[in-house]
Structures are given as C-alpha cells and as structure tokens.
C-alpha cells in the first residue's frame, strides 16, 4: 500500500445537545494518510481538537468493520460518502484529494432526532423491530431438528441477503420522504421467505408497518435513493415484497 498524505478542509455540523441550535464549523486538517479510514481521519481531527483544549466532535462508531451499523454521517451530501456499498468506517481517505473540502453532517430525519453533533437517536428502528421483527419461538432446545424442513437454496439466499441489513439508517437519511421502507421491507422479507416466519406473516407485516408509521417515517414514492445508498446493497425488491405481504395480509387476515 503506497500511502501518501493529503490536507483537507472539514465543514462539520456541531450541535451541543438535542435542544440547542447547530451550525457548521470549519476545521483544517493536515497530513491525513490516504490509508486512513474516514473515521480515523475524524480521530485525527479530535486529537487535534483535544490538544487545542476544544470539544471533540461526537460521532457514533464501534466495530469499524462495516457490520455493526453504528457509523452514519452524511458526507458531501451522500449517506456514508461517495463510495457505493461502503459504510463510513470502510470509506478510506484515498477516495479524497489533497485540498478537498468535505462536508460532514448527521442523518437528517424527524424520526432520528440529533443527540449531539453527528450522533442521532435511531431507537425508532428498535421499536419497529420490537413490534414484530421476530419469530415467536421460545428458547427450549426442543424445537424440531434444524434439517427437518429443507429450504430451497434460492429462498435461503434471498432471506440471507435481506437479513444482511445493518440497521444504520442510510435509507431513511437518503430518502426525501424519510421513509424506512427498505429497512422494514428487508426484515419482513427475511421472515416471509422462510417457512419458520410464515406462520405469523400477516400479523408481522401489519404490526411493523403500523409502528413504522407511528415513528414518523414517511412513505415510499419509489425514487430508489435508499437502494443506491444502502451500504449493504439491500434491494428495492424487498419493498415490493413487503407491499405484497401487506396487501395479502389485508385480504386474508381473520378479523
């Protein structure tokens, strides 16, 4: 890896807490290795700020392997920055040039209120999951043998692809309607494709859609921005499948 160093100007959203008004601050950062990840670049900024006895920039991050879904950030107007299928923690500074000005903002959505600087509250996703994103099976160890029901490989693979969602919220942040339908559609799809999930499919989709609406997420108008910006490449087909599941449940539910 031939590393080189670049200088960048950062325009960062600063906001002390949920109640205060935020603004963009400008910082100069020199000697950033192009092998650094975007978050390592922010570490470097924070080290600089701390050395100047200033408050470092708060941002969510944890695994730094692109799988936990903690990191977010709107970078130069795109969720997770310029690369496709890449989380911010896996975005590297070699994607930027010497002298670049980089805008860094938090997710913007009514359902994701800002807590501080670049940190937002995504617990709405948890509550959607709690409303139905599961199979109602208790721990027993006495469920049937794992191989008792063969599942066609294509179904298993599609369920897996839907299940790779990391719950980062890029879909919501990218959508002009702040719709969470890619996130919810992925979870509904995972279970709809598996025999284990079929039993309570009707109830699940109804509950999750209701909770999604209650949280203040908007509706889908098929612009497809979510699919473009999703770091895991979750397909729009999942939204279509959720809509079919929803329609089906309206027609077949016993009520």
């Amino acid at each position, binding site marked *: *890896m031939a*590393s080189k160093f670049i200088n960048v100007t950062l325009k960062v959203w600063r906001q*002390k*807490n949920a109640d205060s008004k935020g603004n963009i601050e400008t910082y100069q950062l020199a000697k950033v*290795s192009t092998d*650094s*990840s975007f*978050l*390592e670049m922010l*570490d470097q900024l924070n080290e600089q*700020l*701390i*050395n100047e*006895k*200033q*408050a*470092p920039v*708060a941002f969510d*991050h*944890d*695994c730094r*392997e*692109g*799988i*936990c879904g*903690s990191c977010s950030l709107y970078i130069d107007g795109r969720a997770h920055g310029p690369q496709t299928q890449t989380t911010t923690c896996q975005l*590297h500074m070699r994607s930027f040039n010497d002298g670049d000005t980089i805008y860094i903002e938090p997710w913007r959505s009514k359902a994701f209120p800002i*807590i*501080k600087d670049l*940190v937002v*509250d*995504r*617990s709405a996703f*948890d509550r959607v*999951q*709690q409303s139905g994103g*599961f*199979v*109602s*099976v208790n*721990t027993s*160890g006495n*469920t*049937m*043998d*794992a*191989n008792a029901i*063969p599942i066609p*490989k294509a179904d*298993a*693979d599609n369920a*897996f692809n839907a*299940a*790779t969602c*990391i*719950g980062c919220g890029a879909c919501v942040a990218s959508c002009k309607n702040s719709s969470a339908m890619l996130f919810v559609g992925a979870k509904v799809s*995972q*279970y709809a494709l598996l025999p*284990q*999930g079929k039993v309570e499919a009707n109830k699940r989709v109804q509950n999750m859609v209701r909770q999604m609406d209650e949280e203040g997420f908007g509706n889908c108008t098929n612009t497809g921005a979510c699919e473009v910006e999703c770091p895991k490449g979750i397909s729009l087909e999942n939204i279509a499948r959720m809509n079919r599941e929803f329609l089906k449940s309206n027609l077949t539910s016993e009520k």
Partner: protein
Amino acid sequence: MSILDSKIPEGPIDQKWTNHKNQMKLVAPNNRPKIDVIVIGTGLAGASAAASLGEMGYNVKSFCFQDSPRRAHSIAAQGGINAAKNYQNDGDSTYRLFYDTIKGGDYRSRESNVYRLAEVSANIIDQCVAQGVPFAREYGGLLDNRSFGGVQVRRTFYAAGQTGQQLLLGAYSALSRQIGLGRVKMYNRHEMMDIVKLDGKARGIIARNLVSGKLERHSAHAVVIASGGYGNVYFLSTNAMGSNVSAAWKIHKKGALFANPCYVQIHPTCIPVHGTNQSKLTLMSESLRNSGRIWVPKKKEDADAIRNGKLKPTQIAEDDRDYYLERRYPAFGNLVPRDVASRAAKERCDEGFGIEANDTNEGVYLDFSSEIKSKGKQVAYAQGDHNPNEETSIRLGKKWVEEKYGNLFQMYQQITAENPYETPMKIYPAVHYTMGGVWVDYNLQSTIPGCFVAGEANFSDHGANRLGASALMQGLADGYFVLPYTIANYLSNEIRTGEISTESKEFEKAEMDVAESISKLMNVKGNKSVDHFHKRLGLIMWNKVGMSRSEAGLKSAIEEIKGLRDEFYNDVFIPGESNEMNAELEKALRVADLLELGQLMAVDALNRNESCGGHFREEYQDDEGETLRDDKKFKYVSAWEYKDGEATNSALHKEDLKYEAIKIAERNYK
C-alpha cells in the same frame, strides 16, 4: 481449603449436566415476576440470556453502551458456529467436539464445562433455525457446513462471512420480542459503572446514562455480566472500539476472582498494520483457510524484492514458495489451530521472510489461486464441461469463491485497495479474543453470590486457546441453555426477598464512589488525550505480553504499566463535562481499568512458567519452536483475587484441572 469451589456435578461426564438439571431447584412461574435480573451486555450471551429469562417470566433489565442492542460486537464474528450435528457423516459426535475443544485449549480448560458446551451445541442450531436465522444451505435445501482450524470434520454452520451478524440478529429478535412484550426493559446507551453488594450478594448496579451523564441506581436479585473480552488492552485489536473490560473488572475489584488473564488469542489472519493513525485491525475469517494457502517466499531476496515493490507475489514460482504450515504440520496443514498458525507466521517474519512493506515487515500471503482453479474445474465438470480450459476454470472458480467469501473479499479490497481474486491477501496475526476472564463455577456463578458471568467475559470453556467458531457456540450456549437453569437454582432462594430498595447506604456509597472516580479523572486537566495513553499501553502489551513473552520482558512490562498509570492520573485531559454525552470520559474510564488489567495479565504470564496455547514463554519451547507445557506444575486455573491497586499484590488461587474422560497428552498437529 481454597475459596474456589467449581461445583462440578457428580457422575460420568455425559450425565453430569442432565443429572444437575434434574436436581436443580426451580422458581415457579407465578413467583418469577417478583424477581428482577440485570443483564449487562447484549452480545450473543447477554441478548440470549435476557431474552430467555424474559420468556421465563422474570423482570429483566438489559443494558448496553451502544445505541442499540443489535450492535454488540458478536455481530462482527465472521466464520461460523460449531455444532456436533454430524450432518456431513464424517464421524462427528458430542465426544469429538468435546475432545477437539479440550485439545485445542491445550488441556487447560475444565472438562465438565466443555462437555456441556458440546452437548448443547446441537440445540443451538435447532433453536436458531427456528428463529429464522438464514444459515447457508446446499441445493437440496439442507444446511451446509465447513471446516475450521484444529479439527478434522466439517461441523461449522455459517452464513457467508457474517455468521455472527445473523446469530446476533436472531438473539436480538428474541430480545426485541420480549422488550415489545414488556418482559425486558432495555437501557441503550447506558454503561455499568459498578456492582452493588448487599450482605455479600450482588444486588444491583450503578449505571451511567451516556446521553445525560447521569448516574442511575438499579437493583436486582441477580446480575449477569456478559460484557465481552478485554482484547482492547492492546489498543490495536479486532475488537470494536467500545469493547472494554470495565464491567468484568469492577466485579473483580468487588470480590470476583479473575482467571487466566494471560490467555489471549492472537488470530493468524488479520490485515497487517499500516500506519500510526490506525485505530483497529480487521480480521479475515479463519474460514478462508479452508480455501487459501499460506506462504512466504523461500528466498530472503524475493521477500526483499516484494517489500520494495520490485516483485509481485504472482511472479514467484511455485517452487520458490514456502507453504510453511503445510510443511510443518502436514496432518492439519493450513487448518492448524490459531495459536499454532500465528506463531508460525511470526517465526517466518522474524527470520526475515515477511512480505509487508510496513515498519516491521510483518505479513504473509493467503493465496486463493489453487482453490480458484480446482473449484472452477469441479464446477465446470458438474455443468457438463469435463475438460475446461484454464480461463473457464478460473472464471467459474472466482464465482465459487465469491459465493463463499464474497463479503470478506470485498472488505479486504476496501481496506487495502488490492483485489484478492487476482493477488494473494496479505495477512498477519492480531489480538482477537481473550480466553481468560472472570472465574466462574459450573453454574457460571462468580465468587460473588448472585453475580453470574457469561460468554467471552468468563474464563470457562476455551482453556489456553479457543478453536475457531467456538465463541459463538459458547455465547449462545451460556445464554440460551445454561444460565436460565443455573440462575433459577440460585433465585429459588430469593422468592421471599421482595423488591430491593436502591435507597440503602450501600447503593448510596457505590454511587458516591463512582461520582468521585469520575470527578477525579475530569479534574486531572492534564495535557494528553486518553488515546495517547491507550496507545502506549497497547505497545507495551503487544511487545511484552503479546505473542511471545519472556521473564525479563514481563517484569519490565509490570513496571512500565505502573509508570504509565501514574502518568495517566497526572496528565490526562478530558474535555467537556461529566453531565453530558462525553466520549472522551467514557474512554478514560475504560482505559483506567485496562491500565490495571494489563498489569495483572503480565503478572499471570510471569507466574505461568510454561508455554501452552496462546501463552508462549520463550524459555519454554522445544528445538522446533513448539510449546512446552508443564502439566506437573501448571495443570491449574490461575484465579486472582484483587487486593489493592497493584496487581503484584493480587493473591493467586489455584483450581486444579482433573481429566477423567480424556487422557491428557501432548498437543500434536503434525
């Protein structure tokens, strides 16, 4: 008489758990809502424990420092989960999984616990499939398996290279269901600051709300610590940035013994270090060793030329490559256990054959070209092309590899900007997992009554080295199938206790102590960042308490850490206030604990005058550089009792390890 009572049930090894389950006391369903249980951490062990206890009817309070329970670091586990299902008809059994795990751990784990782990492993797969976990399947619709290091069967279940994610999301879904039903109350963005004891029993915790900075008191009839391992003591590791030892360390300071702290797993296949601003290391799953062959050049001049950019690995002729694992360990080849593979890589790099152009030249190749060709041929044959040309084989082979390991190859390319389909991956060992942890008895209870410890946070199942795909197995075994029984046995004496008030003087004192330790750190107002100290601690640990340890190195590490700790308390600078979201304060509190733990790790490593598993003492090796274990003197668990701030004063308690079902032997993978 030692204070250690491991409470191993009587009877033959394969009946201990069944007998014990039959004899343990229960709590009737109508009494369970009167009982509160706190669970710290929402990884595989914590989430599965909280979900199971919630299902059973207890009032559960679950805590995680992340913004959502779904983000716990179990999510990053890649390769798979072991289970003795024998779906592949290659001779697997509960006994064999048990045996492999004991041997893999270099005969330093407790037989009864490991047998139970192997015994419940099959239930885990059944449970997860029932929950809708999308494991990889074959075309017939049945579950697929692959092989992992240190075993000769295929018993690893997987979901591409993100098995941990799928299993954790499964446990998270079970947890979410209980939260939705009101059986579990979830506290996101909360960190445990200390445990509270009443009359010697664990009765609650002090937690810090990481958004408001407020300290909170929470009471319970039992506390489960499932807070993960302590690999971040090395600063650079494959752990998440937030992974920490604090919950485990706080209970250690309040009376729980800490066992085998020196047993650290250095994982052989990680992306090599690239620079000083690097914040973490990234694992490339062990599953890749199913398909990749590890090598370095045979000639030093070739290694030199590669480092200087004058030669490419693809230009090195087959005969000039040293597939050193296949050469040294023909029976297991590239799939030797992790500690063995790591040491072998270090040996080659120390000898000057490393290929990475970084400060230390530390890196070896993991090469997929043979597998791409051979698998491509097989695929072509299955499609009816019995004599494919090389181009077709390579094309089909790449597709096959992509299906198995696609996300790993993509991640590698994002980090290194090199394409592993075309050129071999560069890898080097990195800190990954800690086998040591809080000492627990057979019931997973620590030496504090009512305080249970599960998953990586305890010491129990992996001895001196953990086999691949066994951490996920242990986390879920503890949470789904062990704790729900053993904790009930303990709680059966608590049905008359009633609600525990948080107004007692014990809670008050605990909260005041925490507030004081926070203000102590805030008021240092020095000149250096927390990371500055953490990085220096990491370097001491990696150089002197890392892959290779010596008496002199360990002694100097103990002194250096002491000096660093003094400096930390005199010169650390934490910006902002304690009554707000403050990431630097969170880090400082964690690093303060790591600065104490690091010393204990060195003390433990110094005490253990032998080499076993991940613990390699330079003084104890044979002519070929293999470990020399000393069963006469060291066939015991080292359980340390906290005395005061200095680890050198900690008291050692020994739990002798008895092997009844397995004949203890030299660990040989040749």
